[in-house]
């Protein structure tokens, strides 16, 4: 092991020596452009513009691939000019980059699309801790060279605070999304919110006290925030994870921007604030989709509906079950079918079979569309990715506001693995826990078919009167199995 490490170090040193010649050439070129410092700043400007253009490319699926490439190009330029500016390459960077590249490749290529929320959570965490480490290194450097006046102070503290909360918070969120046993249950203790508030208060005070140039506060801030990240995230339930990841996404950007203030670097500030803004927008979209305030998601426990009608009252004698064969007959001669996928569809891995069903219907001249609720998956836009993986064309994926008025012109609406997002109670009963939450008005369709294992409630824990509606048929069973049988029945018919 040690031997191996030694050899790695020797190899890195060799690389450093052989690259000295190349470095001189590059530095000469840089000098021609007004020096490496100047070159770096020009590079940062170009990189910032590329980041903005890159995100702008994300405004349409056609241009998104190019947008992502522009972002990556911007990153490459920013890193290259930084390396030139910093002079001789050091083993610190080379070994760090090699290890990071290997890890990044592994994670990005191995991950399944259903696991995307965990991966993004994990990456948020990495971004957070990287910012903390940068601020930490700068604090140490300034402490070792007191004659070097820096502006770290307050912002180093803020970086430590936001970055460390992002790190542990993201790890807990990723654990919950991966459904690891240790994280499965929301966990909290009495007085936790008070403890959190006190910790935030102490953290902010320590940050402020760093403004006069003292440095020791940085380390207690980081320790405190590491604990705080865990305490803030553990009480939050799995259903609220889309909000939490979006918020942590924003934090990771803000931490990078704060680190930019610490080392006085424009490109960190610009890129960080772009990401911070992006995360905040997504957070607010997710909150609206659940009709809850951010404070409510973060701090309130979901109260079980106490005085609502019981499942027996809602369902008794009104549930009509159907079979794949019956549904196949029903689908004969229809014109427009809307499919409403929920996370249950992804869990059952039924995306590809659903796509097969849609192909079959389209070959008979039926119009097929998908109604996507903003919280259909486990993170913003997750369901769209899962369906795109199954080759569903993106122009068939309709947003809630766009498709809701058209349900009345729909012959058959097929709900697969979704519950709360199609519960009409949200519109009709102001006392319900989901009152006011925007839902898909599938009840307006001529016939609704709900594919579901049982009548068990969704995350909100309330019965769904849609299932008992006159125009609703229940097809009980595993989503994938039901779809396979339906496709077979359609082919026979």
């Amino acid at each position: 092991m040690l031997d191996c490490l030694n050899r790695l170090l020797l190899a890195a040193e060799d690389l450093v020596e052989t690259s000295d010649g190349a470095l001189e050439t590059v530095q000469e070129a840089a000098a021609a452009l007004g020096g490496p410092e100047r070159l770096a700043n020009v590079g940062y400007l170009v990189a910032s513009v590329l980041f903005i253009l890159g995100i702008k490319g994300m405004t349409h699926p056609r241009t998104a691939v190019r947008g992502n490439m522009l972002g990556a190009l911007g990153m490459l330029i920013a890193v290259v000019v930084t390396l030139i500016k910093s002079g001789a390459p050091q083993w610190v960077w080379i070994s760090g980059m090699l290890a990071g590249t290997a890890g990044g490749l592994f994670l990005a290529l191995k991950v399944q699309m259903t696991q995307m929320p965990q991966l993004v959570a994990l990456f948020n965490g990495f971004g957070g801790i990287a910012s903390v480490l940068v601020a930490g290194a700068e604090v140490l450097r300034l402490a070792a060279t007191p004659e070097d006046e820096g502006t770290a102070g307050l912002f180093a503290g803020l970086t430590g605070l936001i970055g460390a909360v992002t790190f542990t918070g993201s790890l807990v969120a990723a654990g919950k999304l991966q459904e690891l046993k240790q994280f499965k249950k929301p966990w909290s203790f009495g007085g936790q919110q008070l403890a959190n508030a006190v910790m935030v208060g102490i953290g902010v005070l320590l940050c402020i006290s760093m403004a006069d140039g003292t440095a020791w506060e940085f380390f207690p801030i980081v320790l405190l925030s590491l604990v705080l990240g865990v305490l803030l995230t553990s009480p939050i339930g799995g259903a609220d994870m889309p909000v939490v990841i979006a918020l942590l996404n924003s934090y990771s950007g803000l931490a990078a921007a704060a680190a930019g203030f610490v080392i006085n670097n424009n490109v960190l500030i610009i890129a960080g604030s772009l990401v911070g803004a992006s995360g905040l927008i997504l957070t607010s979209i997710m909150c609206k989709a659940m009709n809850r305030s951010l404070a409510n998601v973060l701090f309130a426990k979901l109260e079980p509906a106490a005085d609502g009608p019981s499942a027996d009252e809602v369902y008794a004698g009104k549930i009509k079950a159907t079979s794949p064969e019956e549904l196949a007959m029903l689908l004969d001669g229809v014109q427009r079918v809307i499919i409403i996928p929920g996370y249950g569809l992804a869990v059952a891995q039924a995306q590809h079979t659903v796509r097969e069903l849609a192909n079959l219907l389209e070959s008979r001249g039926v119009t097929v569309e998908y109604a996507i609720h903003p919280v259909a998956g486990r993170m913003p836009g997750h369901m769209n990715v899962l369906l795109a993986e199954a080759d569903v064309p993106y122009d068939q994926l309709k947003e809630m506001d766009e498709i809701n008025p058209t349900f009345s012109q729909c012959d058959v609406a097929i709900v697969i693995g979704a519950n709360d997002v199609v519960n009409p109670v949200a519109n009709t009963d102001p006392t319900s826990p989901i009152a006011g939450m925007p839902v898909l008005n599938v009840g307006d369709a001529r016939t609704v078919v709900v594919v579901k294992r049982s009548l068990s409630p969704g995350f909100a824990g309330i019965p769904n009167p849609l299932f008992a509606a006159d125009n609703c048929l229940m097809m009980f069973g595993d989503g994938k199995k039901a779809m396979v049988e339906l496709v077979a029945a359609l082919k026979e018919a």
Partner: protein
Amino acid sequence: MDIITALTIFALAVFVGFEIITKVPPTLHTPLMSGSNAISGITLVGAVLAGGTAWSNILGFLAVLFATLNVIGGFLVTHRMLEMFKKK
């Protein structure tokens, strides 16, 4: 660079961010998140610039490691997803 200049840049960048990101359709929100995540790996620049003393070198190494993970993993996984949206 004085603090006011830095704050000016910060404020303007936040506004630019809000303006473009509100135009991203919900279909692309997941790739937007992973892609912007990769961009927040810009701390890699900071990680290279930081350091100098022995202790801060260790922190620098870890910072480079995590930031590179973020950059490489983020851009690549975003590309994987966007390719799925491209094909018809």
